[in-house]
């Protein structure tokens, strides 16, 4: 411990080099709250905004606030501009949307200062920057990169940055983005080229999206982009099945090296070409995330996950893990004997509780459900699939959704 006066004296000697002339907490005097609000609202359906950064000194991954829909708001998620030259039939910023809101744009310094101010006041953990393509996508991409450059190099910003790469961006811009951001992403939007044609006439699936994703994959190294690349799809806008979506995502994980995919249920917006199309229920998005979790975290092989789909390739509105377990677990498992790969197939047992079971049984046998409960197993869901020392707590619960 030192005295407060000594601390004050030492702080007076600091030069504040990293903050330049801005000062530590000054967001600038001309913040337009309407602009802030409209450009923020433009990213409301962009759901790929979780903080994840395996840096050498990891970011805390703190959740700063949650909206009333229960979603974390740890990033300042905004568009650079809501002006766009693309014709995406579901998007309110599209040129063919008849219900246009006023268009706004930040300047790089303005956006950098707002971000820095929110970060230093501990409202946010970082920046999630997306944008409409403006009149010239290259120019907007340059402006976004200038914003990041100012944040990182002029203001010494060490928080998290997720940058959306605009479709069709040049390799040079992508390379620069990867040096400045923690994570980048390009939205797939659809599961195939023909489905993208259905929802957007101005983007090429192969050239504007997949080719750019491959650039990112090939340019990624030890020194750049610690949190890798992600992607996002609009679910149900082009009539695709859940199996179509997950087949594409399996390809993305395997061939492109995408860290994770995000799903946004299609919701018709006023004035867009798809205004009269039926919106997708949120449960569909939720079931896709559950399937995605089984693929990425549980490492279920494609041969297992196929059991969750109906004949037309859609998921039921019930837990897909339960559907898979019903098909694959013919007889109840003894947690004292079953291998790890079988344990995680049981509903109510996840990778962590399965590892705890494996660790515990090295020292003694599991004799009762309450011991499993203490290890994190959800007994109500797991018991129909388990027998402990020959005893099975069989009920009809196994067959209910």
């Amino acid at each position, binding site marked *: 411990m030192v005295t407060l006066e000594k601390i004050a004296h030492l702080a007076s000697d600091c030069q504040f080099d990293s903050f330049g002339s801005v000062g530590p*907490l000054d967001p600038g005097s001309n913040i337009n709250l309407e602009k802030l609000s409209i450009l923020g609202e433009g990213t409301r359906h962009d759901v790929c905004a979780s903080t994840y950064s395996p840096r050498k000194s990891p970011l805390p991954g703190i959740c700063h606030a949650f909206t009333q829909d229960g979603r974390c708001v740890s990033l300042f998620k905004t568009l650079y501009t809501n002006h766009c030259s693309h014709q995406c039939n579901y998007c309110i910023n599209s040129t063919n949307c008849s219900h246009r809101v006023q268009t706004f744009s930040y300047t790089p310094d303005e956006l950098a200062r707002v971000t820095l101010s929110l970060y230093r006041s501990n409202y946010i953990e970082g920046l999630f920057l997306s944008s409409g393509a403006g009149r010239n996508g290259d120019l907007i991409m340059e402006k976004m990169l200038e914003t990041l450059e100012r944040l990182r190099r002029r203001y010494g910003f060490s928080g998290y940055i997720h940058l959306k790469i605009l479709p069709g961006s040049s390799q040079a811009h992508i390379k620069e983005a990867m040096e400045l951001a923690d994570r980048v992403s390009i939205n797939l939007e659809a599961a195939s080229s023909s489905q993208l044609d259905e929802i957007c006439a101005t983007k090429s699936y192969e050239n504007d999206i997949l080719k750019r994703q491959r650039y990112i994959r090939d340019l990624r190294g030890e020194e750049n982009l610690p949190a890798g690349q992600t992607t996002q799809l609009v679910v149900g806008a082009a009539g695709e099945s859940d199996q179509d979506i997950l087949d594409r995502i399996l390809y993305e994980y395997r061939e492109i090296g995408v860290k994770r995919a995000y799903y946004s249920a299609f919701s018709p917006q006023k004035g867009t070409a798809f205004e009269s199309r039926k919106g997708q229920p949120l449960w569909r998005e939720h079931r896709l995330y559950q399937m995605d979790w089984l693929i990425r975290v549980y490492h279920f092989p494609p041969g297992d996950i196929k059991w969750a789909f109906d004949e037309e390739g859609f998921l039921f509105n019930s837990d897909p893990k339960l559907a898979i377990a019903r098909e694959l677990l013919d007889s109840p498992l003894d947690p004292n004997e079953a291998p790890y790969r079988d344990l995680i197939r049981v509903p109510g047992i996840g990778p962590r509780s399965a590892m705890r079971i494996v660790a515990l049984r090295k020292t003694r046998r599991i004799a009762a459900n309450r011991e499993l409960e203490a290890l994190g197993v959800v007994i109500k869901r797991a018991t129909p699939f388990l027998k402990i020392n020959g005893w099975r707590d069989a009920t009809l619960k196994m067959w209910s959704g």
Partner: protein
Amino acid sequence: MRVPDDHCRYLAMHAKSSERLLARAKGFKGMDLELTADPEGVRLKKMVRAVRGEIYRMKGFIRLKPLGGQVLWGYMKPRHRIGELICEHFARRNPGVIVVLGYGSESWTALLWQGRMMQDRGAGLDETLGRLKAALGIPEKENGEDADGANLEGGDAGTLDMDDIWQAYYDSQYCLKRKNLQAFQQRMPARDQQSAGLRLVQRRKEMTLEDF
């Protein structure tokens, strides 16, 4: 949440920690506590989790305000003895800036200076900030009273309040279709919001009777 191997460090910060409990906990590794079904082991595990949960939420919920150009301060009245640790966290995030956290009768001060962490404990937020004002030569301003009663002024005249900027952004992210108050309340526990002096984050203008 996993139980870490340095769980005794967290247990020592618990408001109801005792020498006896610490001695008992030293016999456990993190994994032992995770696997235990023994009632006292389960209690120790819960105490460690309670402290880590509060640390996690305080790091997220505390809002910092400027005092001059060299001090960031925030209200915090934690249930457990985590003040020093949280203050150090914010000082590391803002090198060269003095961070002061606290409430009426306790305060914590930290400064990361040339890679070294300088820390002090005080007898309350107002008292500490008053001493810092005097030491740094920060003049008293008219109408400098802030919402928490501290005699302070945040930011330069003419700039928007950060709360207004945040609220405008926060409201822009709201999506009625996805409304899920249960998830909101689970993740923003009122108790921890109170500890961090956080205004309840909600769309006050659009609240209905149903929200209550």
